[in-house]
């Protein structure tokens, strides 16, 4: 039973982490890159604005950081809850 509730806690922690990562994922691409671009148009980057940078470069860089951050945090969670691979 205790193993069961610990597994539930592990899963809940994973869902929290996934949710945070996906909010950032959507914010940089659909947000800064597309919908919020008019709001960011005052910030200029190399001959254009910040929204253009996010759409063509920034979001890809953030995606990369997100995946490595998730892998690092999850591997730590695996050990914390004792569910890592033998």
């Amino acid at each position, binding site marked *: 039973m205790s193993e069961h509730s610990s597994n539930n806690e592990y899963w809940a922690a*994973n869902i929290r982490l996934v949710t945070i990562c996906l909010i950032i994922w959507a914010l940089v691409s659909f947000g800064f890159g*597309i919908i919020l671009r008019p709001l960011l148009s005052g910030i200029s980057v190399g*001959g*254009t604005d910040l929204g253009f940078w996010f759409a063509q*470069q920034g979001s890809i860089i953030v*995606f990369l950081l997100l*995946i490595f951050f998730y*892998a690092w945090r999850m591997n730590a969670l695996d050990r914390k809850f004792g569910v890592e*691979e033998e």
Partner: protein
Amino acid sequence: MEQYTLNLLVVGATFLLYIGIAIWARAGSTSEFYAAGRGVNPVVNGMATAADWMSAASFISMAGLIAFTGYDNSSFLMGWTGGYVLLALLLAPYLRKFGKFTVPEFIGDRFYSKTARMVAVACLIIASITYVIGQMTGVGVAFSRFLEVENDTGLFIGAAIVFFYAVLGGMKGVTYTQVAQYCVLILAYTVPAIFISLQLTGVALPPLGLFADHAASGMPLLTKLDQVVTDLGFNAYTEHHTNTLNMVLFTLSLMIGTAGLPHVIIRFFTVPKVSDARWSAGWALVFIALLYLTAPAVGAMARLNLMDTIYPGGAQAEPLNYEERPDWMKNWEITGLLKFEDKNGDGRIQFYNDKSESFAATAEAAGWKGSELTVNQDILVLANPEIAALPSWVIALVAAGGLAAALSTAAGLLLAISSAVSHDVVKGTLAPQISEKGELLTARISMAVAIGVATWLGLNPPGFAAQTVALAFGLAAATIFPALMMGIFSTRVNDKGAVAGMLTGLVFTIVYIFVYKGWFFVPGTNQLPDTPDNWIFGISPLSIGAVGAMINFAVANMVSRATDEPPQEIRELVESIRIPRGSKAATADH
């Protein structure tokens, strides 16, 4: 040395390398054939995934798509990379823990339903076949341009190479040739880009060059480009001109579609552990990003170079005299992908936006009678080294790179198709008692047949061949991705819910595409013209996959709630795939 001889030498050397790897990496068991024995290092798998993923479209077409539209086509950049976040967070680690060989197999087991498995097989085959035809025609085009052979001959040579390493080595052979192909294609893509970035901005790294100053004018490169194109009536490069909702949905469809494409997912079955699957998705995106961060720079710089070539004295001065056109234009005129028609008979090349109403008066005053140059956007990357007058070895490298991109993706797709046929259809349904040896032979035969079919379709491309984005990404987004995600994140979705969800997602998406593109893509059978004014809420048929996915999620949940809960052992299966521990045991019974 002559350019032709050099092309032949470089392409020939890469082909010998692929054959050498094929002989070294033969598959001896079904586990090796389907999953490379689950012994692939996560970084190596990341590199193979990058080659598997980056097709002729990424290599040849994407920079051209961005060059001619600018910001509006950023969807391809965000969509084709953002899908890896979904893959890493929502699918890859769990499917690796499940420890089987194919995507339909997971759907069949999790939803305890042969029907669900067969629906998944059907979607997989439609999506992958559509995708593979594009690769085969890409091989033909690259061969005919660089090696001066017939299109068909080029296709046969490409098919023979894939046949050799895919039939012999299965996933194992494909994995290690993809690593070699990645190295060839990324060199071929970045080397010319670095040269061009140095020429235009003095900055060696193209992604930084894109936002740097244009050396000749002292202005920021993108400001200069905006000015040059708007002076000729084209839309400003960095501005947004399309429907925002459609751009969001198109980007989302490409993302979900990417995460749901079986040939990408099965690559994550080859790593030893669940934690490796997480890292490996990150490495895959590192290798993909090297090309995807370079592509927008290549697009913008190639566009500026093209405009400068045609208007050497700027947009206000006289354009280029046709007789003085550079050699690269002559080379591409032969292929028909670049055309000049002297509409006003002055012998000069007027290239401008003749669809712009605001620019019409300026054009008329100058005595221009329509734009005289048509440029196929696919030639930009291939012609780039010639436009920038780079050394001939760079041109040979680009030829080898284009072929590597097309062949590596074709092999990955063919593997997904043949393992679905041998493992899901033959072993899973028709002949469950088949031996390990028998299944390995079946897998090899299915692979050989799949290559034969793909070659035939490459020679006689059907109407749907050009619809890779709509069909492959739309179907993967609307059917496969939601089924996989619900299979992992819900214990409540049952067999009936999954089948109902996949079928409604599939039918909705396909019908929306057919209404605009014609039933089964037969020209003239569409009910509504395929233009933005006629799209419902401005949603293009290419963006509908994301809506199909939402319908799939909704229907699957409603039907599941109205019917029986999944049996206890299915809930235990879901609990077990959520936890990394025991991944070795999960694979031991194979």
